[in-house]
Each structure stands twice: as C-alpha cells, then as structure tokens.
C-alpha cells in the first residue's frame, strides 16, 4: 500500500470514528439510570433548552452526564496517544504508560493528595491534575534516570533499560499506594479504590477545561514532532543520521507522554490497557506514520473509553462498574495475543 493511500485511509477512518464518537457522546448523555432501570432520553438537548439549567433534571444532564462523557473522551485520547508515542519511542509494541510506571507515579501523587483531605476541597479541584501531572513527570524522570544509568554508555538510553526501570518504578509506586491506603477511613478508601480501578466519576467543567487545554498543547507538540518521531523506526543512530536530535526528542516526547498520562489518570484513575489496545488497532488500520496516526489514535481512544464508560455506568445500574474493569476485560486477551505474536517472532 502506498503512502498516499495510507494517508487517505487514515483520514477516512478518522472521519468515520469521529462521527461514531459524536454518536457515542450523544448516547452517553441520553442514557441514564433511574430507580434501578435504564432510561433513554433522546430529546435531552431540547429538554435542556426548554428547562434552562435550573431544574434537577437539567443539572443531572449538565453537571453529571455531560462532563462525564467529555471526561471519558479526554481520558481515552490522552492514554491512547501516550501509549502510541511510548511504543514508537521504545520500539516495543508492549510499552504503554502502565508498563513504564508513569501512570503508577501519577496514581501515587493523587493518592498522596487524598491522604491530605484538607487540600482536596472545593477550591482545590485543580490540585488533582497538577498532582497527577507532577507524579507522572516524577516517575517519568525516574524511569529515564534509571534507564540512563543502565544504558549503553555515554549517558544514552537503552530500550531494555527503560522498560526494566519502568517495571521497578511501577512496583515501588504500587507499594507506596498500598501503604497510604491502609491508613484511609472506609469512605475515602472506597472512593479512592474505585478511582484507582479506573473510575470516571464526578468532574467539574473547570477541571475538564484545564486538562483539555494541557492535552491539546501536548498533542500539538507531538504533531509538530511527528515526522521526527517517525525517524525512530531507523533506530537511534539512523534517526541522528537524518537530522533528528534523537536523544533530546526522546526525552521531550517521553515527558510529554508522561504529561498526557498524568492528565488521563487525574480524570480516570488507573485505567489500564487503553494505551496498549488503541495504538495497535490504529496501526493495523492506518500504518505507523505518526503524522496520520496521532489524530486517529486520539479519536479512537476517546471512542473506546466513552463507550466503555457508558456500558460501565449502565450494565449493573444503579450500581456502577469501574470502567477499568471493562478495558481490562478487553485488554487482557489483546495483551496475551500480542505476547504470543512477540514470542513467535523470537522476541526475548
């Protein structure tokens, strides 16, 4: 398949999935649970216009279902794009924010914040994304630092060193989170555990705006770097030979991936496998050129989590499943399949 055909195919898939995403968002807001059953309100937009935003029904739509639908899209887009970039940088199809310990760092920072409940009050909503971002960046820097010390010499990173460092950092963060959680009271423990299992709950519009703006800035940086990220397919030496400052780009793109992971975790908790499943599906649909896959991955990630969250919200209504349960149910078989393919190819 020629490059121009792949570009056209990628654009067609992006457009198609974007339309599906619009439909999924509309359905996510239209579907709700009432007295233990599922209700479908196809006229939610007109009823909102008629009622204004003063009625209880309007408040449920405007401040509960709609922000949650938007949050699920942002979470999916952030995690999927972070996974796409990490897999491209490490040239490892199994690399995702979770494997590299970046989401663990973000989760730890937010759990640490919840351990100080006085800080997480109404006026401190903005602290959650900032904490997740800081935790993800901290874990990212730690992984890069350890990976560099295990590198191939000259302060350079080896792919294997990076992945092993990620596993160590992830285990360390998980241990610290467990240590903090045993000291939580039952209510906070339940809330935090559900969030850690991948739960998109109540989200403020202000928080969504902040996260969306930061995610957009990160995406633009990656899009501008896309043709240089493609050069990592030549290996680090090959990328340098075609004019890419490979080591600087590797560090910056890894940090931007940490940012996206932190933003995703701040809204959706430790939602696993999105950064693994979506990039694989996208590469199968449209090839591996970052210039055409970055947007498609964001749309596909948003669609996956938007649909999964709607199902998680309604499947056991009035109880809610953490959306992470559903993504894990899809992701585990995918991971097993990928591992099998890798082992058959003779990967160590």
């Amino acid at each position: 398949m020629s490059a121009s055909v792949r570009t056209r195919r990628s654009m067609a898939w992006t457009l198609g999935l974007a339309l599906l995403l619009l439909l999924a968002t509309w359905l996510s807001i239209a579907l709700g649970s009432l007295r233990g059953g599922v209700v479908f309100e196809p006229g939610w937009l007109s009823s909102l216009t008629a009622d204004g935003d003063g009625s209880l029904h309007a408040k449920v739509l405007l401040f509960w279902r709609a922000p949650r639908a938007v949050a699920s899209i942002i979470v999916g887009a952030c995690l999927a794009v972070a996974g796409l970039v990490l897999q491209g940088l490490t040239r490892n199809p199994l690399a995702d924010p979770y494997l590299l310990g970046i989401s663990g760092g973000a989760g730890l920072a937010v759990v640490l914040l919840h351990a100080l409940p006085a800080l997480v009050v109404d006026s401190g909503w903005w602290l959650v994304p900032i904490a997740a971002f800081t935790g993800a960046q901290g874990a990212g820097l730690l992984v890069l630092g350890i990976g560099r010390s295990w590198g191939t010499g000259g302060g350079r990173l080896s792919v294997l060193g990076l992945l092993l460092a990620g596993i160590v950092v992830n285990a360390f963060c998980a241990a610290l989170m467990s240590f903090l959680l045993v000291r939580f009271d039952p209510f906070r423990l339940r809330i935090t555990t559900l969030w850690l299992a991948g739960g998109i709950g109540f989200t403020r519009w202000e928080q969504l705006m902040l996260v969306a703006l930061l995610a957009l800035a990160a995406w633009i940086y990656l899009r501008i770097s896309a043709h240089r990220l493609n050069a990592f397919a030549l290996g680090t030496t090959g990328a340098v030979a075609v004019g890419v400052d490979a080591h600087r780009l590797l560090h910056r793109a890894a940090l931007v991936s940490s940012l996206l992971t932190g933003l995703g975790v701040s809204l959706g908790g430790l939602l696993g496998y999105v950064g693994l499943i979506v990039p694989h599906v996208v590469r199968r649909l449209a090839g591996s050129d970052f210039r055409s896959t970055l947007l498609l991955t964001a749309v596909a990630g948003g669609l996956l989590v938007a649909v999964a969250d709607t199902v998680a919200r309604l499947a056991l209504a009035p109880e809610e499943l953490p959306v992470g349960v559903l993504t894990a149910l899809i992701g585990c078989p995918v991971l097993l399949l990928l591992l099998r393919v890798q082992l058959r190819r003779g990967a160590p």
Partner: protein
Amino acid sequence: MSHTPPTLEVADLSCGHGAALLSQVSFSLSRGEALAIVGPNGAGKTTLLRTLAGQLPLLGGTIRVDGVDLTRLSAIQRARRVAFLSQDDAVDPGLTVEELVQLGRTPHLGLWGRPGPRDDNAVGQALSACQLTELAHRGLDHISGGERQRARIAMTLAQQTALLLLDEPVTHLDLRRRMELFELLSSLREQRQLTLLMVLHDLPEAYREADRVLVLGEAGASLVPASPEHRIPPLG
C-alpha cells in the same frame, strides 16, 4: 584550469570514545571521488566514520564539508550535507521500501512534516536509481538482504547530500550481491557526482572500488592511491 573545491576536508582530526583512538588524520576528497577506509578490527574505522557523520564528538582538528565547519552545523543542517549509513541495520522491518526511502527526506521537511512535490521527486528518483520502483510497496521483511541494503542506500540518496558515508555496506551479502551493490555505487558516483567514503574489510575490494584507500594501523593513518596496478579485474 578550473579548480573544484573539495567536498570533504579533514585536518588534524582526533576522534574516539572519550579518549583519542585516532589522531592527526588529514585528507580531502573532491566531488565524485571515492575513498575506502581499511584496517584491522579496533583500528578506529567506524569511529572515524561516525565522527565525520557527527554521531561522535570531535576531539580535535577540523572537518569541513563544502567549506563549512561541520561542528558548527545543527543536526538538520548536517543531515542536508552528509548522509550516513551505519553498519547496524536497526530499521523497523514493518516499514515498506517507500516508507524507508521517505525517511531520507526528514531533514528537508517543514514544521508539519508534510512532503511536497520536491520530496516526492527525490524519493521517486532514489527508488529508480536503486532499481526499487517495483518493490516500493513491499515490506522490508519481504525482500532479500541485497534489496534491503539497496533500499537503505536509496534512503541516503533521498537525503540529496553530496557526501555519502557507508559503514561496511556489503557485509553479510554474498559475492553476487556485493558486486551488484558496488556497480550501483559506481553508477551513482558517475550520475550524481557523489563523494563516497566507505569502510571496507576486504583489501582487494577497497583497491578495486575506490580512488584512494585510507589505511588505519598502529602507525596511524596513511593514504594510498588505488592506482591501476593495484586494481584487480572484476569477478565474473
């Protein structure tokens, strides 16, 4: 008589990984000239080539490409003047031949990385020069070792540089493929006035395929002309 400025001028060069492995290396190459670098293992052949490519820091001396000091150039500016093919083939086998060759245009692309007609032409010409047009949409894991090496060379041609540095370009190829690759390089030198610098292991091959040979040994670097009496008739 017109004087053609040298494409590559190396003066008192010292290079190595931290400590100097080679020092006081000087030579110059004119446009269309080919130089082979030979020497025993560990003599510093690859280190010299990687330093010339800007992949290793220069420990001393100067490198000028078309009269411009290489150390003063950014990575992109350098890649527009010097193409380098490493010994290790670390290319993702999932790429197609065309996708690989397109990566050679990386230093010429703008902010959003969209290729223009000039980029498409350069890729088309590089594929055609390496007789790869028909294999353009084939995956790298579905072609032979010789075709794959030709695809890598086509990528460096798409970079449109005057100087091409090749680190052991024929290693792992059988005799027939080696001859084909050298024929290709020879025709590219003639058609494009490419200046070639190749690390080779085989001494007769070096004398046959280059205009001059840089021999690296314990006594340092010495430049030997590959005069006709040194040449061995082509095999087959």
